[in-house]
């Protein structure tokens, strides 16, 4: 199947700063992918290039098989929701009306339902909305558009935890009824971890991790206990972090572990805690040149 997104060697440089460095990946249609990374990692630049709002310095970008830049055919099949969207002097309902004309899949029913869920006043000028409400407006547009490719760039600025959960629930519910390709960039990883089928981690303009979300769970763990036992247990495994106090040590180790390993850990009286997705991303980003692409992760986890 043609990938929904196919990026090869994408590079974007500004004066004295490389925002994206030979980024290469594919995204299959009909999936939710998490785009993770620190602030300034390059997530926003990548999304804007995908949406044709920025231009690459080098490399190739294909969305639905064609370059999105200045391409109306492709652009009307996708929507990018940014937290820093600039609006003219119009009201909330005007913004929704305009979006309804531009997106063939627009659902007025979903839009009005979400408007109520987020308690957005339709007659208020967008410029007068609080930051959280502006984000909510972006989310309403992004979901109701039902665009084949829906890109969200940290769309939850200013939203409290309850509103964010409303977003995740609404996203999942509509995705289940109307499958599409979704790419969601976020730095609040653990909250959204359940949504993702795939995860792409970017750090300093490079992809450091690209794998199925489920493959990454349990791939690394924190081993804690008496120093000697910990060192004995972790010998031969890749270690990402080591901390020690008195005779206790805590080591972040890359697995995978089988039943024997677990039994051995029990007998050594060691405590094993799997790394959450967020912790995994933090460690992956901190590594100098980790090899955490699909193939190597699959090797590790196919125990």
């Amino acid at each position, binding site marked *: 199947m043609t990938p929904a997104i196919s990026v090869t060697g994408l590079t974007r440089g500004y004066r004295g700063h490389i925002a994206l460095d030979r980024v290469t990946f594919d995204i299959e249609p009909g999936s939710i992918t998490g785009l993770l990374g620190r602030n300034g990692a390059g997530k926003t630049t990548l999304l804007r290039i995908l949406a044709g709002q920025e231009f690459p310095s080098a490399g190739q970008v294909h969305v639905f098989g064609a370059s999105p830049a200045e391409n109306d055919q492709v652009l009307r099949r996708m929507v990018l929701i940014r937290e820093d969207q600039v609006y003219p002097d119009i009201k909330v309902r*005007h913004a929704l009306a305009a979006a309804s*004309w531009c*997106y063939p899949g627009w659902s007025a029913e979903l839009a009005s339902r979400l408007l109520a869920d987020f308690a957005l006043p339709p007659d208020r000028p967008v410029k007068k909305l609080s930051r959280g409400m502006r984000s909510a407006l972006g989310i309403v547009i992004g979901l109701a558009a039902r665009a084949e490719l829906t890109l969200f760039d940290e769309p939850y600025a200013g939203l409290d935890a309850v509103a964010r959960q409303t977003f995740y629930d609404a996203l999942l519910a509509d995705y289940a009824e109307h499958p599409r390709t979704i790419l969601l960039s976020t730095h609040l990883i653990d909250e959204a971890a359940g949504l993702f089928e795939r995860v792409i981690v970017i750090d300093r303009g490079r992809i450091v991790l690209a794998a199925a979300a489920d493959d990454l769970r349990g791939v690394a763990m924190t081993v804690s206990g008496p120093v000697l036992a910990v060192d004995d247990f972790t010998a031969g495994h890749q270690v990402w972090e080591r901390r020690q106090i008195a005779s206790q040590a805590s080591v972040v180790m890359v697995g995978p572990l089988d039943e024997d390993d677990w039994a051995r850990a029990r007998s050594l009286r060691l405590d094993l805690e799997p790394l959450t997705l967020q912790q995994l991303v933090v460690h992956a980003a901190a590594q100098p040149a980790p090899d955490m692409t699909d193939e190597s992760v699959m090797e590790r986890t196919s125990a």
Partner: protein
Amino acid sequence: MRTWVSVARYHLVRPAIFVGMPWAIMAFSFVVNLIIFRLVPPSSHAVQTGHGVVQVMNTSHYTGAVAIIYVFFFIMGVFGTGASLPFGLALGVSRRSYYTGTALLAVALAAADGLALTVLQAIERATGGWGEDLHFFRVPYLLDGPWYLTWLTSFVGLALLFVYGMWFGIVYRRWNIAGNVSFIAAQVTVLLAVALLITWVHGWTGVGHFFTALSAAGLTGLLAALTAALLAGGYATVRRVTV
């Protein structure tokens, strides 16, 4: 095509800006002019007649206040790109389509409003200047001739200012205020260079002759050419704008 219509609809989603305000301002200006000329006592000027010098009352009131709608078209042009471009691009529209859709809207508005101005001019003529001999919609030389010429000149004039405003808006989006300042400076420089060139070739009398001999229709043609040039300039600038 469908995209251009979507862009036009997007601009008109709040009719106040592109439809309501120009006419609200015009109406206000008109009423102000009418009241002023009612209140101010008429002046007079001296005229040589066969019986000696006679003081004649200036009953005709000329005002160039109709220019206000032209100025507003410039403002709409700036708004149509400067303020509205970011969200427009977010709606899945290419820069080319956005520009074309906005330009087509400009043409439609200029044609419609130009027609309205023509109609009002006719009414003004028919009512003897609204009963006060007020020349609001009639401007000597430019907007005083047959209705079709008035329509054409108004149309081109309004379109010209809208397109000029569009270019300013795009320059703002691409290079911010500093960009606009440079843009103005560049234009002034060009004009200065042209003036210097004409002076150097002693061509001012020639230029003077050209313009005095120019009819309203000819001037309209010149303005149309200028509009086309501004359209091209704006288009070139919008191609790489990022929001």
